[in-house]
C-alpha cells in the first residue's frame, strides 16, 4: 500500500478506536442515568463489609436492630415498599425463609424504602404496619424514609436483596420478584443454607 494510503488507513483506525472507546464510556454513563436499562440477575457480590445502617424507626422489633448485634447470624436484607407489586409478590417466599431459618440463625430484615415523597403515604408508619399485617410479615422492618440505607447499599430496584454472612460480610446480592419454590427461590434458599452452615 502506498505510504499516504497507509497513513490514511492508520489515522482512520485510530479515530475509529477512539470513537468506539467514547461510545463505550457513554454507555456506562447512560446506564447510570437511564432507569430503563436492565436489572441485574441475582449473583455473588464483591465480598466486603456490610455498611452499618442507622434506621431509628422499626416495626416488629422492640429496639432498633444494629448490624453489630447481629454478628454471628446470617442476615438477609429485603429492600421493598408496600406499593410495589413485585415486592409484595415476593413476601410469601420471605415469610417462608423466616419460618424455616430464624431458629437456625437467619435474621430477615425488611428495609421499607418509599419511592415517592410523603404525599403518597409510603412514609406513614401506620400504613407500613397495615401492610405487614396484610402480608403476614413477622420479621423486623426498618423504615428507610430518607433512603439513607438504600443509598448506603447502592440499591436501585424494588425489590432488592442483600445476603450478609455471620462475619458481617456481604456475600450475595440481587433484585427481582420470585415465588415459593421457583428457581430464584431455590437459589436464595441454597445461599442461605450455605451461609448458615459456615
Amino acid at each position, binding site marked *: 500500500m*502506498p505510504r499516504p494510503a497507509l497513513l490514511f488507513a492508520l489515522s482512520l483506525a485510530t479515530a475509529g478506536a477512539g470513537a468506539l472507546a467514547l461510545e463505550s464510556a457513554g454507555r456506562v454513563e447512560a446506564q447510570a442515568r437511564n432507569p430503563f436499562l436492565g436489572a441485574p440477575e441475582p449473583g455473588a457480590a464483591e465480598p466486603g463489609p456490610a455498611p452499618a445502617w442507622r434506621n431509628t424507626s422499626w416495626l416488629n422489633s422492640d429496639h432498633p436492630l444494629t448490624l453489630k448485634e447481629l454478628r454471628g447470624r446470617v442476615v438477609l436484607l429485603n429492600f421493598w415498599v408496600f406499593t410495589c407489586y413485585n415486592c409484595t409478590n415476593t413476601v410469601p417466599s420471605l415469610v417462608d425463609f423466616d419460618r424455616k431459618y430464624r431458629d437456625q440463625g437467619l435474621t430477615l430484615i425488611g428495609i421499607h424504602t418509599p*419511592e415517592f*415523597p410523603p404525599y403518597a403515604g409510603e412514609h406513614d408508619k401506620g400504613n407500613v404496619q397495615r401492610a405487614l399485617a396484610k402480608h403476614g410479615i413477622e420479621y423486623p422492618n426498618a423504615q428507610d424514609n430518607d433512603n439513607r440505607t438504600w443509598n448506603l447499599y447502592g440499591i436501585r430496584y*424494588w*425489590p432488592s436483596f442483600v445476603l450478609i454472612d455471620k462475619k458481617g460480610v456481604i456475600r450475595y446480592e440481587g433484585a427481582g420478584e420470585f415465588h415459593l419454590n421457583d428457581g430464584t427461590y431455590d437459589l436464595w434458599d441454597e445461599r442461605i443454607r450455605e451461609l448458615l452452615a459456615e
Partner: protein
Amino acid sequence: MSTAGVRLTGLMAAALLVVACAGPAPPPAELRVETAPIGADTRMTLVAGPDLKINARLKPALELADGTVLRFDSPRLTADSAYFAEPPWAQLAGSRRIRGTLRASVCRVDELVCRSVTLQL
C-alpha cells in the same frame, strides 16, 4: 492503489467513521406526557412505551412549582389491579404551559422489579 481503489477506501472509511461516531443511542422515550384541551382546561395523559407498565398502586404524580400535586389515574387496571391497562391521566386547570416534576413507578414487561422515574417537564 488505483483511483477507484482510493475512492472505495475513502467511502468505506467515511462509512466507518459515521458508524463509530454515532455514539450510544439516546435513552428510549418510553414515558411521555401528551396534552389535549378539555374545555378550558388541559388533560394530561401519561403514555408508556410498549415495554413498560405503569404502577397503579403508586399513582404517577406531577408536582407543580406552586406545590400542587396532581395524581394520574384511570379506572381501567390490569386483572391483578397492579398496573394501568390504559394510560392514566390528570386534569390541569387552565391551559398554561406545564412546568413541574413528574414521578412514576414503572416496570418493564421483561423484568420483575419496580423502578422510579422522574421527569422534569
